[in-house]
């Protein structure tokens, strides 16, 4: 081979500075943000929220190893989260027992490293369950994952000593040796624990995407048939990825075990599996950062929006459907589209269109909010009235209906306009 080729090739490959800005920098920024948060003295409410976000970030990233990277749609990923978490809670109890009892291995095991147990157990579960499930991709895989999830969830109420039945299993995180001077009692100390593992998890999952196995998992997603003819067994690729995804879900489970100090069989059921699917998808499965965005947004909605509106799940459903229909790249895809668009030559045209779309979307959404909130209050039947910005919007008032119908109509109109312009623009 000529030196010339190597030269050309080097030019094609990203330069070191590109590598740094595109790969390392985002991770570093992420870590710095995480480390700086405590400097703002967040309240325990905020800390709780952040901790849950951290757990969900790792969980959603692990899910995306399957869905986004591996093309495997799973409805049972919470199984590995749950099993990892259960293992960690059991370990936590053993640490407690050992430190009050006769010592031994568990007495010297720091709670700080429980996520490692979670990882091991999640990976083990992945190894066992993945064996039958990874033989085929696509719908059979999805259906098996659903079946397995329901099976394990049902078993949750059967094997009391493992899952604890309705009561679940709980533990106390303040036992065993302390690490880094963290007693893990107050939530502010748990924050450091979560921060540490969020960064470790994120980094490891990112690193995984850059390994030969990670790359071949993408290849298998795109074209399993061809993968066979370049020397790989697609089942094996899926299986290995599945084990890792299970492991990282278990890691997140271990983080959750320390945060909540309790696990109930509900943790392995369909509901949290659905939630992580929503997180990854809404965030954007084709982007590494997508699930992170999704986890942050959905956790916020789940914990905070549920205080403002009883119908938050409805908003979530709508958000999800809008993403599926109009933005398959998810929130991250929208952001990436904006950034690319800013660089495109027809920038001005695009900005105009975006503005129209956002205005239309916001208007339609505002109308929808009024509709939903008025409906919720009507449905509760306590005679409560929706009063945004000091307005008084009872069900019967004409103003209410005007505020519902006019923005929706105007919004839809604007959206159509934008759509039409886009078509024309392409012509």
């Amino acid at each position, binding site marked *: 081979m000529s030196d010339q*080729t190597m030269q050309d090739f080097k030019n094609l490959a990203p330069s070191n500075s590109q590598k740094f800005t595109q790969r390392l920098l985002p991770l570093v920024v992420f870590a710095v943000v995480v480390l700086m948060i405590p400097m703002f003295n967040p309240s325990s409410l905020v800390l709780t929220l952040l901790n849950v976000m951290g757990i969900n970030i790792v969980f959603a990233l692990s899910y995306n190893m399957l869905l986004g990277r591996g093309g495997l749609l799973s409805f049972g990923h919470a199984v590995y989260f749950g099993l990892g978490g259960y293992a960690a809670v059991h370990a936590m109890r053993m640490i407690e027992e050992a430190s009050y009892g006769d010592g031994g291995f568990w007495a010297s095991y720091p709670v700080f490293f429980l996520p490692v147990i979670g990882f091991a157990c999640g990976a083990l579960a992945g190894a066992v369950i993945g064996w039958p499930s990874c033989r085929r991709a696509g719908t059979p895989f999805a259906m098996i994952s659903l079946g397995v999830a329901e099976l394990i969830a049902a078993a949750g109420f059967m094997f009391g000593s493992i899952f604890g039945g309705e009561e679940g299993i709980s533990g106390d995180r303040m036992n065993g040796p302390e690490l880094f001077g963290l007693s893990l009692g107050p939530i502010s100390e748990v924050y450091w624990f979560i921060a540490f593992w969020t960064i470790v998890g994120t980094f490891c999952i990112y690193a995984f995407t850059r390994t030969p196995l*990670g*790359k071949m998992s993408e*290849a298998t*997603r795109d074209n399993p048939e061809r993968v066979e*003819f*370049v*020397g*790989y067994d697609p089942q094996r690729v899926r299986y*290995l990825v599945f084990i890792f995804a299970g492991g990282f879900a278990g890691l997140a489970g271990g983080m959750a075990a320390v945060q909540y100090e309790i696990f109930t069989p509900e943790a392995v059921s369909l509901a949290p599996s659905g939630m992580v699917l929503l997180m990854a998808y809404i965030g954007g499965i084709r982007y590494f950062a997508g699930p992170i965005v999704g986890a942050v947004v959905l956790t916020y909605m789940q914990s905070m929006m549920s205080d403002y509106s009883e119908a938050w799940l409805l908003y979530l459903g709508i958000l999800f459907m809008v993403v599926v229909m109009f933005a398959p790249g998810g929130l991250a895809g929208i952001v990436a589209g904006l950034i690319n668009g800013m660089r495109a030559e027809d920038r001005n045209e695009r900005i105009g269109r975006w503005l129209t779309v956002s205005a239309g979307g916001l208007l339609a959404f505002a109308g929808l909010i009024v509709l939903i909130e008025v409906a919720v209050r009507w449905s509760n039947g306590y005679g409560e009235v929706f009063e945004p910005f000091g307005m008084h919007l009872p069900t019967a008032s004409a103003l209410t209906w005007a505020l519902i119908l006019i923005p929706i109509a105007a919004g839809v109109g604007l959206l159509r306009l934008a759509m039409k312009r886009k078509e024309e623009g392409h012509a």
Partner: protein
Amino acid sequence: MTTPALSITDLRKSFGPAKIIQGVNLEIEKGERHAIIGPNGAGKSTLFNLISGGYHPTSGSIRLNGTEIGGTKPYLINRMGLSRSFQVSNIFANMSVRENVRCGVLYSMGYGYSFWRNVGNLKEVQRKTAEILEKVDLLDKANLPAALLPYADQRTLEIAITIAGGAEVILLDEPTAGMSHSETERAVALIKQATEGKTLVIVEHDMGVVFNMADRISVLVYGEIIATGAPSEIRGDPRVREAYLGDEADALENGDAA
């Protein structure tokens, strides 16, 4: 005499009642360029599928360098040094051209299912990828998504993935299908160069390509090989004319391929 690269004896394949391959015998020497021609539906692609592990033979034997491979999984056969391309482009559409080729390279370089190495740091892999890309002249398109390549380039990429693993025996299924004249010429040159010294089995309907490239030609009709021989023999064979070439044989004789 050395063992043939590929030796097929009494190979049969039926799908239900339909007997598609009905007793094929074929030996291909190391370093030979062998073309398989035959009417549509004769079973050429099926034969390729049998050799490369896509289908299980109903009976008969296929030996690669003396080792039986009939019914072995495709990825195992591939690891033994046999690689194939597809009649309909079968590439990794969501990946870049470079990544496509790299997928073909990874296993052969011993990086199988490794999950502790960063692909970016695998120097040999990068060098090999670049080498292949250069060979097929796709270096300048290395970072384009494969799906956005023009049709002819996708066909070329198909070939690139096939040769990337460094297999000694290469099967190409209609590599120039759908290409224009100039593209076909380029592809032929490229294939010749890239498979220098390797064993090549090729299926083609473009007689220009076939007669230009092949050392020997086999004619497959209704699942049976009715003739094998040097291009000149095949051209003259009346059975081949009757079953396959039709009027085109005359055109070929006039040196004016379709």
